[in-house]
């Protein structure tokens, strides 16, 4: 559905230039659910805007839904749906009117456009709101309307830019319910950006991590966590000399990594904690170290990002927030 090679985008900002995207290569097959993850300013939205023909790339090529984004943007537009970061419905317009307009924008006849508008209203539980104006809707309702607008022409490929940002947990869950149902019932290929780690982790079958305009990791959440982060093992002992000895033992374990000691606590990373922990505890016992507590934790995607960049995704989110507008 998506094949991009060497996609770049440079913005002029004042006298300088910002390379928002620096050489994006990506292939997305039909029916996949891909989450594009990265801090604000990493180039997520810019990439999305290039793939949806909203923004011409500075260099590189991309074929989306079988059409070239540069030479045939109209062909791309007719085949994809796009739900942007902001609210898609105009403030002066009624919900159903906007849906009919959107269908007409895709070339449907009036009667068909009305029928289709009613279908998506039902699909996203918006029927009761048909004659309301967007200003009177709740955040979750507005987001459902945005998705309804993106689905009006039944695209085989739907792009969603931060579909759940700014919503309360209940509305987020509800939006996800709709997104996942869409995929289950219609096999729609979904490409979405998010900076919610948990979302990318639990919902997407493929996570693409982008930072400073480049893809730095690509795989299932499990693969990324297994290969790039590993499980965390935390052991506490009774005094500091014992902790030092426990760290020595830890360093000898096959595949162990990032061993740190902090007072009576030893932390390390291993590929499979379930397999490693019993072995580690036995070795500690043999060395005469008495263990007080032992814990393991599965890594998060934040650990993956940390392992790749040395920064936490949450921290870089804050420091990057205002760096590049909407990129």
């Amino acid at each position, binding site marked *: 559905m998506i094949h991009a090679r060497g996609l770049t985008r440079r913005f002029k900002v004042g006298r300088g230039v910002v390379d928002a995207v620096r050489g994006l290569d990506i292939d997305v097959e039909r029916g996949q659910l891909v989450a594009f993850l990265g801090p604000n300013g990493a180039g997520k939205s810019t990439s999305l805007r290039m793939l949806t023909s909203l923004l011409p790339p500075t260099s590189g090529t991309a074929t989306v839904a079988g059409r070239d984004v540069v030479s045939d943007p109209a062909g791309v537009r*007719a085949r994809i749906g796009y739900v942007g970061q902001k609210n898609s419905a105009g403030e002066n317009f009624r919900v159903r009117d906007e849906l009919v307009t959107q269908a*007409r924008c895709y070339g449907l006849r009036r009667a068909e456009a009305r029928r289709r508008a009613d279908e998506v209203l039902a699909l996203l539980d918006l029927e009761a709101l048909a004659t309301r104006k967007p200003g009177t809707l709740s955040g979750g309702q507005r987001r459902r309307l945005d998705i309804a607008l993106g689905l009006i022409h039944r695209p085989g490929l739907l792009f969603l830019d931060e579909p759940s940002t700014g919503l309360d947990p209940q509305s987020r869950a509800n939006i996800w319910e709709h997104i996942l149902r869409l995929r289950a019932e219609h096999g729609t290929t979904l490409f979405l950006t998010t900076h919610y780690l948990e979302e990318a982790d639990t919902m997407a079958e493929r996570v693409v991590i982008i930072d400073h305009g480049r893809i730095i990791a690509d795989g299932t959440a499990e693969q990324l966590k297994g290969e790039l982060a590993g499980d965390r093992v935390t052991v506490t002992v009774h005094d500091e000399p014992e902790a030092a000895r426990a760290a020595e033992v830890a360093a000898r374990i096959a595949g162990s990594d990032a061993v740190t000691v902090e007072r009576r606590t030893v932390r390390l990373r291993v590929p499979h904690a379930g397999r490693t922990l019993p072995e580690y505890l036995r070795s500690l016992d043999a060395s005469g170290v008495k263990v007080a507590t032992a814990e393991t934790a599965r890594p998060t995607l934040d650990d993956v990002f940390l392992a790749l960049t040395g920064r936490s995704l949450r921290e870089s989110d804050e420091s990057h927030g205002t760096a590049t507008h909407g990129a």
Partner: protein
Amino acid sequence: MEQPRIDRPRVDRPRPARHQAAGAAPLPPNGVPHSPTGKKGHPVSVRLFLRDTSTVFSREFVPVLREPLGLLFTMGQPLLFLFLFGPLLAGTQSFEGQGSPWQWFVPGILIMMCLSGPMMAGYSLLVELIGGSMERMLVTPLNRTAMLVGRTMKEFVILLAQAALIIVLAVPLGFRPHLPGVLTGLAILVVFGIGLGSLSFVLAIASSPSGNLFYGVTQLVLFPLMLLSGVLLPMDFGPAWLQAAAALNPVTHIVEAERALFSGRFADLSVLYGMLWACVVAAVGLAMGTRAMRRGI
């Protein structure tokens, strides 16, 4: 459910219904290039352009129909000018050889509306650019020029309604419209306004996301353009430098053309100049507007 019909000739075959649930057939892709870069003047692209223009126009116009009261409010200002400012001019009696002062003033009010209406179109576009609704339409195959023209057309339907009302109300006051002249004059106004509307869209696009540029420029440009066109008072009494500046102002020529036409003086040279200026503004506006839309927002 049967295949949805699309009133656009299909060039390529519909995709097979893979991955779609039995109940939902995929819409056939749009095989026709939607942009006017396709084949200019080709009947198919002309029809698509008209359809897209009507889509945009209906979107903009439906809220007006749903809330007609809002329309009355926007008609308030020109009516105030007609009733509170017009009589002042009528009292001055300094319009040598031009008949009733109303003959001179009514075209001026119409031009004033013509300047502010399309600027409002730019403002509404700016609001939609700052929100996400413009982006949502830009990602559809909708023709870019049609987006501009459809929006301006809506402003002009409103403007024509206002113009008709003003003309009708001015008749009891002493205005004597020359019907073919008025119709021709309104046609020039429409052409001029489409150009102005597009220019105001260009400005709105250039001003987003903050919008400050838009407010600044409309204030700085609109008012001098109006004052320098002799809409409210004849330029004949001004100093030479002011008259020279007015001669460079396209609005001046359009006002003069309107005045000649509304009095039935078709042969007046100012009619020709006014028409030319209206066409120039429309051509420049549409060219810049389409370019701005294509370059991405």
